[in-house]
C-alpha cells in the first residue's frame, strides 16, 4: 500500500523538506520542497552598480567566495574589463580553497553520518563506520575538523577576510599579498596536501590520478593503506550498504569552464559543457532558463532566460506550487551539476565507466566529491608558483557603464550564475541561479521532475519511519539551500532560524 511521507532534512545547508510516496517499499514519486524565500534579487534592485560585490557574498556563509566571484565576473562582462593575471591566480586559489574545505567536510561530517544509522547494524562494516563517522567524535570526523580548519586562512590572508569577503573586484583583487603571505599560504596548502594523501587517499595524489578504469580502482583498493583510507572505506562501505545502486536519475550534466589559466598545466581544470544523450555539447548561457509553474512565484513573472525573469513571490490558494526554488533548465532539460558533472563533461575515463556500470549513483557522486581535492591541489600549487610579485593584481576597469552581463562560476556544488542589468548606474535587474537550485529544483513547466526528485524514484526504503535511503540520495547532491541561523537548544533542534538565500 502506498504512503506519502514528508521529511524535514537536516545536514544540508538551510531548510528543505522532501516528500516521497513509497509503494511496497519503493519510492514511486518525490517532491523537493524549498521551504524559505530568499529575496536577495529583490534587495538588489535600485542599488549602486557595485553593491553586488558586498551583498551577494552574504547569500551563503559556506560558498561566499563563489558568489563574490560571480558578481565580479558579471560586472566585468558589462565593462568588458580584462583581469590582471595575478588577480586571476588569486581568484582561482580562493575558489579552490573553498572547495577543499567543503568537499572533505561534506563527505565525512554530513554524508557519512548516515552510515551510523541502526538500519545497517547487521552489516560487517557497521562497527567501523560508527567508529569513523559517529557525529562529534568519530575518528574521521575529528580528523577532518582538525585538517580543514586552516584552509579558510588562505582566503583570509589573500583577501583580508573570510567569510563574506569583498576583495574581488572588476579588474582583479584589491589586496596585494606579500612574499611572506604567499609562503604562509603555501605552507597551509602543503600541510593539507600531506594530510589529504595520508588520511583521505592513503596514497599519493599522483598514484590516485593514474587510475583510469573500474578494474584499476578495484586493484587499488586491494592495497591495505588504500582500503583503510577514508576514500577506500567510503567505497567499501558504500558498496556493502548498496549506495552504488541508488540515486540514479536524469543522465544529463552541466558544468562551466573553471580553473583553466594560460601558461599552466590544466589537467585538473573543468573544461565545461553539457552532457546529454551521451554527448558533450558546448555550454551557452543563452540556453539557461528559469521555470516557475511549481514555484511560489507569480505566473505573471514569466519563465525564460534569467535576464528576462523576475522574482515576485506569491503563494496562491489551491495551486500546485510547492517550492520556493525555481526550476532552472538548460535547453529545456533538467540537468545535474556538481563534482560528478565536472568529471563527466571532462570525459574522465574512470568516472565515465563507473557511471556506465551502475549509473549516477549516490556513491559515485560522493567519490567524485571526495577526490576533487586530488585534482585541485596540484593546480593550486602551480597557481601559487605562478604569482609574480612584481606584476599588478588589479587593472583599472575604466568607466563603469550601463549594460547587461553575466558571471558564471563552477562553485563547490556546481554551476553558479549571476545575471545583472545596470541602468543609469543602478542595478535594474539581478538574478542568481545557484547550483542547488539546479539540483533541488521542483518540476518544470512540462511536469518534468528536478534532478533529485528523479534520482529518488526507485529508491528502496526498508522502513518508512527511518527512511535513511532517501537521505543518502538527497545528501549525495551536497545541498546548500540557504544560510540559516542556529541557536543552542537543549533538545538539539534548530531554533530561531532565518533564511537569506536558496
Amino acid at each position, binding site marked *: 500500500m502506498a504512503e506519502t511521507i514528508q521529511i524535514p532534512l537536516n545536514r544540508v545547508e538551510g531548510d528543505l523538506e522532501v516528500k516521497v510516496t513509497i509503494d511496497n517499499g519503493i519510492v514511486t514519486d518525490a517532491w523537493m520542497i524549498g521551504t524559505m524565500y530568499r529575496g536577495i534579487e529583490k534587495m538588489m534592485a535600485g542599488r549602486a552598480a557595485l553593491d553586488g560585490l558586498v551583498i551577494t557574498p552574504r547569500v551563503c556563509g559556506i560558498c561566499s567566495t563563489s558568489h563574490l566571484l560571480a558578481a565580479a565576473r558579471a560586472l566585468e562582462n558589462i565593462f568588458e574589463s580584462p583581469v590582471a593575471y595575478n588577480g586571476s591566480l588569486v581568484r582561482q586559489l580562493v575558489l579552490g580553497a573553498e572547495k577543499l574545505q*567543503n568537499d572533505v*567536510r561534506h563527505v565525512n561530517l554530513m554524508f557519512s553520518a548516515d552510515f551510523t544509522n541502526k538500519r545497517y547494524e547487521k552489516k560487517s562494516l557497521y562497527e567501523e563506520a560508527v567508529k569513523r563517522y559517529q*557525529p562529534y567524535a568519530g575518528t574521521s570526523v575529528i580528523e577532518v575538523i582538525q585538517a580543514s*580548519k586552516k584552509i579558510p586562512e588562505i582566503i583570509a590572508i589573500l583577501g583580508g577576510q573570510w567569510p563574506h569577503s569583498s576583495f574581488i573586484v572588476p579588474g582583479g583583487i584589491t589586496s596585494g599579498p606579500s612574499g611572506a603571505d604567499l609562503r604562509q599560504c603555501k605552507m597551509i596548502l602543503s600541510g593539507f596536501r600531506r594530510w589529504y594523501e595520508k588520511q583521505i587517499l592513503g596514497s599519493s595524489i599522483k598514484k590516485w590520478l593514474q587510475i583510469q578504469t573500474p578494474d584499476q580502482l578495484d586493484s587499488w583498493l586491494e592495497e591495505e593503506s588504500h582500503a583503510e583510507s577514508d576514500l577506500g572505506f567510503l567505497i567499501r562501505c558504500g558498496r556493502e550498504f548498496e549506495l552504488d545502486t541508488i540515486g540514479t536519475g536524469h543522465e544529463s550534466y552541466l558544468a562551466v569552464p573553471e580553473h583553466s589559466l594560460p601558461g599552466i598545466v590544466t589537467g585538473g581544470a573543468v573544461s565545461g559543457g553539457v552532457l546529454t544523450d551521451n554527448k558533450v555539447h558546448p555550454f551557452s548561457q543563452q540556453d539557461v532558463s528559469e521555470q516557475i509553474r511549481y514555484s511560489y512565484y507569480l505566473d505573471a513573472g514569466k519563465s525564460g532566460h534569467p535576464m528576462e525573469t523576475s522574482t515576485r513571490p506569491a503563494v496562491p490558494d489551491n495551486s500546485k506550487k510547492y517550492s520556493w526554488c525555481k526550476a532552472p533548465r538548460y535547453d529545456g532539460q533538467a540537468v545535474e551539476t556538481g563534482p560528478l558533472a565536472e568529471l563527466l563533461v571532462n570525459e574522465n575515463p574512470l568516472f565515465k565507466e563507473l557511471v556506465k556500470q551502475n549509473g549516477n549513483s549516490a556513491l559515485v557522486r560522493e567519490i567524485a566529491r571526495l577526490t576533487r581535492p586530488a585534482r585541485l591541489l596540484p593546480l593550486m600549487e602551480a597557481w601559487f608558483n605562478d604569482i609574480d610579485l612584481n606584476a599588478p593584481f588589479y587593472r583599472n576597469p575604466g568607466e563603469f557603464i550601463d549594460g547587461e552581463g553575466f558571471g558564471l562560476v563552477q562553485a563547490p556544488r556546481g554551476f553558479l550564475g549571476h545575471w545583472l542589468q545596470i541602468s543609469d548606474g543602478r542595478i535594474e535587474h539581478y538574478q542568481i541561479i545557484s547550483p542547488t537550485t539546479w539540483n533541488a529544483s521542483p518540476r518544470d513547466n512540462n511536469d518534468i521532475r528536478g534532478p533529485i526528485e528523479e534520482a529518488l524514484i526507485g529508491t528502496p526504503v526498508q522502513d518508512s519511519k527511518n527512511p535513511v535511503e532517501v537521505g543518502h540520495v538527497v545528501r549525495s547532491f551536497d545541498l546548500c539551500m540557504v544560510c540559516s541561523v542556529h541557536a*543552542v*537548544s537543549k533538545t*538539539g533542534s534548530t531554533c530561531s532560524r532565518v533564511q537569506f538565500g536558496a
Partner: protein
Amino acid sequence: MKTILCAGNRYCAEDSFGPMVYDVLCKNNLPKNIELIDAGLAGLDLLCHFEKSDRVIVIDSVSGFSAPEELVTIRFNELQNNETIDYGHSGGLQYLLHCLPALEIIPKVDVILIGFEGIADKETIAAAASLALESVNA
C-alpha cells in the same frame, strides 16, 4: 588568553542576544588578555578561539534551558545531555561544542555559556555583559 565569544544574528530578534551583548562589551576597555569576538553564525571555524584560550565564555540565544526571558549560566557538562542535533555545512556552534571533548579542548579549556531565551531588553543585555566580565575573570 580568555575569550568572550558572542554568537547569533543581529537581524533576527530572537537570535540577536549574542550580538547585542557584544555591542555593549565593545564599549568596555577590556584587558589585553581578554579577546572579544563577534562570532556571527560561524560554527566549526570558531575552533581556533577555543584552541588558544584557557577560558571561553559563549554568549548565545538558547532554548529549553530555563524559563523564557531568564538569563541563564550553563556549564559545559550541562550541554552534553543533548541528543543528535541538526546541523548544516558549517556544523554550527552547537556541533562544535559537542566536538570539544573529542578535540581534547575539554577538559583543558573552561567553557561557560551565558544564554537567554526570547528577546532581551536593555537591562538584560547589560546584566549579561556584566555577568560575562565576571565569569571571564572568575
